[in-house]
């Protein structure tokens, strides 16, 4: 597996480090010497001004649901350029000052030290665009006064077209059908070995499988449910047990909306649960010790997942391999349930609903495991499992109406901050819906992201992993192990868990 904290300079001629002086000792300034002699696909030379424009344009645009919060946080200390009402709250001057050109270099001024900044810059949202070409095609002209006009567009000006410095050019995009990429013969690292890549959307599995078998498809996404059908077919290779930078968990809501229908009577009277049911740590621990990871991994994941004690999973820096977590122990679960709510819970019992979104078998199976084991402890315990469509699930989740919810998290960038923040920080994506707040945890997370010294960071993230297990704000179900499926004539592939798909430049066809 490729490491996720080592870097190869591409459009920068050197990777900034504190040692080479390109990252200032306070971690607030990053200098990128821009590689010379690189050309865009239209023949225009790459300049530091293009790099500067690319990042400013991204921040100016900042679309709803987009990835730009990842720049905004380290550069401006905010998550969005707008408030909840949609009004712009970040003045252009701030965006303008965050990135600047100095000779052949581009300098980023950070609001605070932000160790994963390099990881963030390594991904598709940091792609460099040609300023001149963008403006010619109706994109942001680079001026302060046009910032509001280009902020959060419904359809971005470059929605249908793309042009960069990379090894493949976008040849065609038939929405919802397929897109094709054609080799850029003038790519500065030399042309790719593959001339054209066509990515198709084939919804029907049987059709996709037949095309894969026939060799009309070289690389195929095979849903876990169908893996057995193609596992031993001639000419098809599958590489398994690849750690994915994703994790799923059962999150407990500490303050459930009292109007939620999923808490039944809303009281601890045997016919429901009170809104603060999960504030009692013994309830959470009772749930944690009731989960059967072995069965779940075998039945839902066909054995292709691993149990992890915390959201800092393998593949991330500062993953603690020695951290202990929970395991199935119904005796311990019983002990905790007996202690919960001063023994009242055990005497009165409870009723609650666990929702899952229809089609997500992992969530259904995990809910059933919890139901079966918890109900086996006390006949007064009742968990009702209900499948609903994703919009309904989402609606109740964001409104803190779900007593507990099962969702997954995929890395935006490979750093533990990207995992501990949503899982543990009181303002994090999941913790906020849960209303989980531990001031010490918040402090540690805020310190971790500002700390440059790797040893100190290790200490912080190890401590957070320890607290996570002690506090049990959620229970990690699994870190999935992925597979890649391709025909045996595909060569050059290696696993890098942060790639969203295959990196076509490295591939070729042959035996």
């Amino acid at each position, binding site marked *: 597996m490729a490491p996720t904290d080592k870097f190869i300079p591409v459009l920068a001629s050197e990777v900034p480090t504190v040692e080479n002086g390109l990252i200032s000792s306070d971690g607030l300034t990053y200098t990128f010497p821009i590689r010379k002699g690189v050309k865009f696909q239209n023949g225009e030379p790459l300049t530091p001004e293009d790099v500067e424009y690319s990042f400013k344009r991204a921040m100016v645009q900042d679309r709803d649901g987009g990835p730009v919060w990842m720049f905004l946080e380290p550069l401006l200390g905010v998550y969005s350029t707008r408030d909840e009402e*949609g009004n712009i709250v970040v003045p252009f001057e701030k965006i303008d000052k965050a990135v600047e050109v100095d000779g052949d270099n581009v300098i980023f001024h950070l609001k605070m030290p932000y160790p994963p900044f390099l990881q963030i810059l390594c991904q598709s949202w940091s792609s460099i665009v040609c300023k001149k070409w963008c403006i010619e095609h109706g994109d942001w002209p680079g001026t302060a006064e046009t910032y509001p006009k280009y902020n959060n567009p419904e359809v971005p000006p470059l*929605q249908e077209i793309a042009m960069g410095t990379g090894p493949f050019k976008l040849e065609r995009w038939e929405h919802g059908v397929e897109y094709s990429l054609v080799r850029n013969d003038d790519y500065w690292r030399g042309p790719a070995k593959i001339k054209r890549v066509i990515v198709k959307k084939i*919804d029907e599995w*049987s059709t996709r499988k*037949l095309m894969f078998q026939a060799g009309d498809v070289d690389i195929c996404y095979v849903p876990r449910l169908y893996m057995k059908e193609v596992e031993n077919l001639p000419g098809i290779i599958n590489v398994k047990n690849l750690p994915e930078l994703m994790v799923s968990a059962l999150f407990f809501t500490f303050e459930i909306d009292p109007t939620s229908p999923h808490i039944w009577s809303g009281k601890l009277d045997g016919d429901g649960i009170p809104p603060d049911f999960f504030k009692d740590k013994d309830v959470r621990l009772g749930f944690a010790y009731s989960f059967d990871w072995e069965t779940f991994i075998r039945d839902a994941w066909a054995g292709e997942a691993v149990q992890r004690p915390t959201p800092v999973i393998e593949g991330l820096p500062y993953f603690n391999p020695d951290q202990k977590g929970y395991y199935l122990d119904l005796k311990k679960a019983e002990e905790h349930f007996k202690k919960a709510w001063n023994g009242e819970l055990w005497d009165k019992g409870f009723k609650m609903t666990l929702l899952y979104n229809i089609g997500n078998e992992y969530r259904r199976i995990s809910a059933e495991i919890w139901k079966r084991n918890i109900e086996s402890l006390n006949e007064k315990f009742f968990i009702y499992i209900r499948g609903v469509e*994703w*919009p309904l699930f989402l*609606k109740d989740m964001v409104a803190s109406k779900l007593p507990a919810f099962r969702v997954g998290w995929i890395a935006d960038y490979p750093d533990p901050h990207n995992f501990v923040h949503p899982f543990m920080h009181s303002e994090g994506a999941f913790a906020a819906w849960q209303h989980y707040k531990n001031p010490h945890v918040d402090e540690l997370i805020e310190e971790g992201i500002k700390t440059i010294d790797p040893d100190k960071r290790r200490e912080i993230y190890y401590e957070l992993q320890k607290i996570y297990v002690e506090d049990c704000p959620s229970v990690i179900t699994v870190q999935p192990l992925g597979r890649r499926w391709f025909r045996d004539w595909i060569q050059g592939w290696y696993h890098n868990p942060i790639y969203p798909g295959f990196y076509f430049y490295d591939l070729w066809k042959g035996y």
Partner: protein
Amino acid sequence: MELKHYIIRRILLLIPTLIGVTLLIFAVIQLFSPVERAALYIRDPRQAKDLPGIIKKYHLDEPVYVQYYYWLREVLKGNLGYSKSVNMPVFDAILNFFPATIELVLYSAPLIVLLGIKLGVLAAIHKDKAADHLTRVSSIIGWSLPSFWLGILLLAIFYGQLGMFPPERLGTEASVYVNSPNFIRYTKINTIDALLNGQLWIFIDALKHLVLPVASLTIQIVALIVRIMRSSMLEALNRGYVLAARAKGLEEHDVIYKHARKNALIPVFTVTGILLAGMLTGVIITETVFNYKGIGYWAAHAATQLDIPAVLGFALLAGVIFVFTNLIVDILYAYIDPRVRLG
């Protein structure tokens, strides 16, 4: 009433019909909360923080009449909205996906109708004989087969085993050529464009890809026409004018094909109109199984994702298709049966 006036009146009737259909859809959509409708824009739980902004931007929390007003105002300006499920304007999505369905219907509908009439007549004139039983049994089997199962079976045999008829609309090489500047996509109907561009190899490639979806649709739908044609033909054969024709000494061939069949065709026309409109507005399963992405695939995909502008755009298209198909059928009635008067 003059034909011209009749057509104008029917077209004018289209406007209230479409308003009614779209109002109905808007009313049904209100059953979903603003958050549920905004969920289309949220693929990932981490983006949920943007929900309030999305709801405000698309007026999802406004009263239904305000939302309808915004939509209708844009439609009148020629803007059908943006289909988030395929990331393109609704109008473009229709232009993109509809030609595939038209092409499928262009080849399967004539086959279904002609074969259905032929087999229906055959079954009727050989009533209770081997040909009749065979036609009826095979058409019932075809009608009863689940379309996804039949499609997959055909694919497994003719593509998987024999390597003859691949899925999708074109092979890789042809697809690259069709999308190159050397090829002009006049209609986006591949077989027609191939001929207009003088590229016979693309025409053949497109035909090869059409064989299985057309066969699948024909096997399934032809049964309906066969059954209607057979019963209508049997009824016609028992009519007095057929007896009279026979009594006059006309050849049996002429009695059947010139007299009885023409009259027996009327109910077939009615069904064909509805059938055609139905096929044009979506043969979802066939399009999905053969990865032949047409309008039905797009509409179903959009509906499952609560892509409201797309669903409304599709409803408008479907309304127009049904109204025009019925209009054509009515005009054809008058042509076939002079007793029918348009009014």
